[in-house]
Structure formats: C-alpha cells, structure tokens
C-alpha cells in the first residue's frame, strides 16, 4: 500500500494518533520542566550538588531509548505496560537539556550585573527572581526546545510498550513491510517536531535580552 492511499483511507486514525502522540509529549514535557527548572535553580545555589545532578541526568541520556523503556517495565508504580511508563521514560530523557540550560543560563550572567545586584542590597532570592531568571529565560527556553524535539522523536518508540502514539504506525509498518504505513507515523512526527521547533524558536527570540 502506498503512503498516499493509506493517508486518504486512514486520515481520521492518523489524526487521532497524532493527538495521542502530542498528549504523551506534552505530559512528559510539563513534568520535565516542573522538575528540571527548580532543580537547576537549586544546584545554582548549592554548587556541591551540581556534578551529581547533571551526572545523573546525563546517564539517562546515554541509555538507548528502547532499552530504557524495557528497563522501566518491571519497576513497580512507575513501570508496567502503557502510557505511564512511557511518560516516565520521556521525562528522564527530557531532563538533561532543560537542567543543563537552566544551570548554564543562570550562571552565565555578567558577573558585574550580579555584583551590582548584591551590592545594592538585593537578597539572594531577589537576585534569583529579578535578575538571574529573567536574564536566563531565553537560554532555558532553548533547552526546553531541544528537549521537546527529542521527546517527539523518542515518543515514537513508546509504542513498543503499548503507549500508543505515532510509533504505532511505524511498528505496524515495519511488521507489514509497508513504507506507506511507516510514513503515516513518521511524517506527522517529523511535522510535529518541525512545528514545535519553529514556534519555540520564535518565543526564544522574543525573550532574548542582548
């Protein structure tokens, strides 16, 4: 079956699967952001923990994605077959780019600016909220952008553990030896990644303070 006929005959299914994929990605990203940004702020204030936190996040990044999904299945509470396990794995993947950029953004600020802030009587929290975070925002967003694109790609593999999403078509296509079916998963996934990348790039540019 060629791709065109598959798209025309299965349009509704492709659309709903794309939404399912998007849901996986957004859930994982929301959780990853909620963990990585506060953690980044924390390690800026406790530099001793920096190496450990970044190290652990890097280790997750190095595990092949299919293996990570597999490893999680037997783990109680977060594991098993289905969406929950997939989200956990995706969160682990997304942590590093966000955490690293948060840290780099918060520490890469002109020392003269930070010195002035402190010398003028700002408390450490005021320095964080009013100076460091606003100035780091575009760098942090760049991390979120990278993580989003990675997550959209890796989420296709989540279908292997029954989490659904566009990977369903890809695995089905591989089994059927059908390029058309593979493309039904691959093309929407690629489009999602491109659109997300473009939109976040726009936001990032608006937030940049030169």
């Amino acid at each position, binding site marked *: 079956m060629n791709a065109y006929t598959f798209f025309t005959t299965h349009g509704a299914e492709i659309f709903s699967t794309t939404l399912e994929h998007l849901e996986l990605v957004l859930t994982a990203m929301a959780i990853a952001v909620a963990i990585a940004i506060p953690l980044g702020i924390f390690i800026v204030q406790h530099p001793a923990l920096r190496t450990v936190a970044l190290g652990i996040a890097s280790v997750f990044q190095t595990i092949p994605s299919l293996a990570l999904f597999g490893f999680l299945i037997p783990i109680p509470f977060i594991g098993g077959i289905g969406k929950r396990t997939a989200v956990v794995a995706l969160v682990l993947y997304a942590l590093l780019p966000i955490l690293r950029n948060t840290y780099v953004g918060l520490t890469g600020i002109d020392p003269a600016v*930070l010195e*002035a802030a402190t*010398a003028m009587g*700002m408390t450490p929290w005021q320095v964080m909220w009013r100076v460091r975070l606003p100035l780091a925002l575009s760098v942090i967003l760049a991390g979120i952008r990278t993580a989003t694109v990675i997550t959209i790609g890796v989420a296709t593999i989540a279908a292997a553990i029954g989490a659904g999403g566009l990977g369903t078509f890809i695995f089905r296509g591989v089994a059927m030896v059908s390029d058309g079916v593979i493309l039904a998963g691959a093309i929407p996934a690629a489009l999602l990644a491109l659109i997300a990348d473009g939109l976040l790039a726009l936001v990032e540019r608006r937030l940049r303070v030169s």
Partner: protein
Amino acid sequence: MPSPTFAPTKISIEFRGVTYGVNGTTSRAEDPVRQRESTPENGSRIPEHLTHSGGVPEARNAAGGARVLIADVSLEILCGETVVLLGRSGSGKTTLLRLINRMLEPTAGKVLVEGRATTEWDAFKLRRGIGYVIQEAGLFPHFTVAENIALVPTLEKWNAARIAARIQELLQLVGLGGQDFAARYPRQLSGGQRQRVGVARALAADPQILLMDEPFGALDPVTRAELQREFGALAKRLGKTIVFVTHDLREALLLATRIVLLEHGKIVAQETPEAFLQHAHPEVRAFASCLDTEDDATETAAWETSAREEFPRGAGGAKSA
C-alpha cells in the same frame, strides 16, 4: 585649593585593628562576588583563593597558607569627605571598599559604619543605604534606564509617583535630562551614558555614603575626563561621603579631599592631594613618576601633532607656516 574642614563624624567609617584577613562571605548573596573575583580578566580583584574560604578565619592562598589581605589599617572617614583609595592591582583597595558594605567580612578587627560594626548591620539594609558604582556600571540589561535607577527605591517600597519623580530628578542631575533616556535599555546607550546611569542608580535612594570602584576605568580618555570633571562638581554639591577606588593618580588628585595610598594591604600614605605629591615614600614616588611618564606621553603626542603640521601630506618641501 584649601583642604575643606569637615563636620565631626556624624557618619564615620572606621577600620580598626591590627590584622585583617577577609572572610569569604558566608551568605549566598556573595556568589556574584566570588564569581567576579575568580574570572581571570579581573586581575585587579582579590585573588581567587579567597573565593572558597567561607568561614575560615583568614583568607588562604592556593598552597593553604594564611595570607593577610589588609593589615595594620586604621582609617577613619568623616562625613562629606571624598577619600580616594589609590594603589596598584592587588594592593587591597577593592577589598577595603567591599568591607564597607559587607560584600566581604573582616576576619579580624572591625569595620564600623555609623558607629556600628558592619557584621551587626542587616547586610541588605546596610547595602541599600550605601550607593555603589562599579566599572562598566553593571546595569541590568533587562531593565530600562528608569527601572535600573528605580531599583533601590523599589526594594525599599517607595510609591510609584515618588519613584517617577526621583528618576526624572536624577536623570537631570547626571546630565541625561532632556531626551527620553528613561525608556531606553542599557544596550542603547554609550559607555559614558551607561556610567552616568550607574551613578544615578547609586544615588537613587539618597544614600549618605557612596562607594565607587574604578567607575570611569573602562571609558575612553575623553569621556573619562568629562565624567571626572562633572562628577567632581556633583560630589562637591551633594556633600556625600565618598570612598573611591582607583589606580589613576590624576583621577585621585582631581577628586579626592584625601588620598590614601595602599601597598600590599597596608596604608603607606594618607595626604591631601596638595601634600601627596611631596610625600617621600617610595610607592608615592612610583605613582608620581608615572604622572611624569604620562606627561611625556602627552608631550610625545603633541610633538607628533606638530610634526604633522610641519610636514603636511604631500607638501614635499613646501613651507606652509
């Protein structure tokens, strides 16, 4: 110029004691200082070994030995004085300055501001009451000029109308009235204008004390001279107590009511500008001699100019004057 006489010490900053090491400060608020000090380009800052010495009674050098940064310093600064701390890189002048607003804490001895040890002050309150100007101004790039100036008043929760009025007043004061500078961002200003905003920001909450760390050091010579003159006039008018760090003797002579020369963390001379140049200490002579060298440089430039005039381009042997 007769040296001015000052009122008795209503506000006084005193350094008393025999030996000062300096604590790497204990609060996270000082992170930026540590970072700044450990950047290689800030060669004149306190050496890096200070940066990890939190809580240790004396600053230690890389080999672990104690190193005294400020020693045998007893300095009283009276209300309305402009004291210039002069010295080479690493002589301890910036350390001394930072002790005043508790960016650094003394490990021995005492630093008193208005009769109270800085360590007894609430650090944030103390700092908000002391204006601070640094090289390159350190303006907040994400704040407009107005927001930069408004920083301390905002922290002190002034009402909006009062802050707005104060911003206009200060822009006038530093020569940035007229055009609408208030809405601009620092990146839209020249170096000299940024430094003017830096001064305005430091003066915002009308502090009695102003600390300035080589504020004009990064400016081109013409702009620097302009700002030095204007600031000198402003300082006289405002009557603030000013502590000013520089390694430029000319600047010191222009602005100071008293010059304090530091060498290896010790005060080696304390004189009025008039008396300073007569002082016999070798370090004073060293500084005075570069004044001569700078004169030579000026003369060389003058000679080059006259040489160009004598031999105009393409004029061959033509006599033009």
